[in-house]
């Protein structure tokens, strides 16, 4: 596929992810609880990972491409970790423990980023494993986390089934499926898996955008229409 098309697709994905951050930060802002901080952080890092991938596609220097791809891998994994942690802690733990764990996770992220910076941008001190192998393991890990979130949200839906609560599990299932398609593409270079992974990823982000619109924007529009009538 043409690199320009791929850059546009990464750009669209990043834009959608950043649009979602505006909504995902609302639970944290309203409640002030750290356990919901993973949601905006997760979607921000997803957007950043798509930007790194887009940037890597726009360079011709193979050294820069590799560095950008490694950054994309780590930010992508952290995005899924933050999302999974948010769901894991959303009901289970006392506030103080969650606060400490979130701080630990953010500190660990900075440590990993410093390590990555030292490894990638300074004269080589440590040798990184092959990008392709790491990519496959990371995709698998991301997929497992996305499946975990899918089951978590599906369980919430099953407790009190409502049509409006089925979309979040669908969104996360699509996100997991896109990671699976990227994994298949990495293993057998299947073109359809590569295209499918991008399309499914955008679909999943659109599902989340629809959920956000229905909950936050649509009631506002209805209220405004009522006041005009």
């Amino acid at each position, binding site marked *: 596929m043409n690199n320009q098309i791929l850059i546009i697709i990464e750009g669209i994905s990043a834009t959608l992810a950043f649009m979602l951050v505006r909504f995902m930060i609302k639970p944290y802002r309203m409640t002030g609880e750290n356990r919901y901080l993973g949601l905006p952080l997760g979607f921000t890092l997803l957007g950043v990972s798509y930007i790194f991938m887009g940037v890597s596609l726009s360079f011709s220097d193979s050294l820069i491409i590799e560095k950008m791809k490694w950054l994309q891998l780590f930010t992508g994994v952290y995005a899924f970790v933050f999302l999974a942690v948010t769901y894991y802690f959303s009901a289970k733990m006392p506030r103080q423990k969650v606060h400490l764990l979130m701080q630990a996770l953010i500190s660990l992220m900075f440590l990993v980023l410093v390590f990555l910076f030292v490894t990638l941008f300074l004269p080589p001190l440590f040798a990184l494993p092959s990008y392709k192998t790491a990519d496959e393991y990371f995709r698998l890990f991301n997929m497992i986390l996305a499946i975990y979130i899918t089951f978590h949200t599906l369980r919430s*839906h099953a407790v009190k089934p409502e049509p409006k609560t089925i979309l979040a599990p669908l969104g996360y299932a699509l996100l997991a499926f896109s990671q699976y398609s990227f994994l298949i593409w990495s293993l057998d270079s299947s073109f359809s898996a590569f295209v499918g992974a991008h399309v499914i990823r955008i679909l999943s982000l659109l599902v989340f955008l629809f959920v956000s619109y229905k909950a936050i924007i649509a009631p506002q529009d209805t209220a405004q229409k009522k006041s005009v009538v």
Partner: protein
Amino acid sequence: MKQLRRDRLKIYMDILLVIKAESRKEKIVFTRIQQKTNVPFDRLKMYLSELKDLDLIQDESSPKLTGKGLQYVTEYEKVLDFMKRMGLTYS
């Protein structure tokens, strides 16, 4: 299932939601709010006084939401609905 302790913000919001739900009635009685929010009487009086200081309710004896209070509760309900749709729990 183990119930986590509610923080002050959650209690405020529970009280405001009850006041909003009861707002069609002519007079909102304390005991009704107390029953629905599960807050002891002396603490409920203190919370209502604080909510009045924040300009979220009009009167402590028969509380009604102010414009600011209604706006705050509406925003809160939207965020709660969003969290529910996203499969997140807030307890």
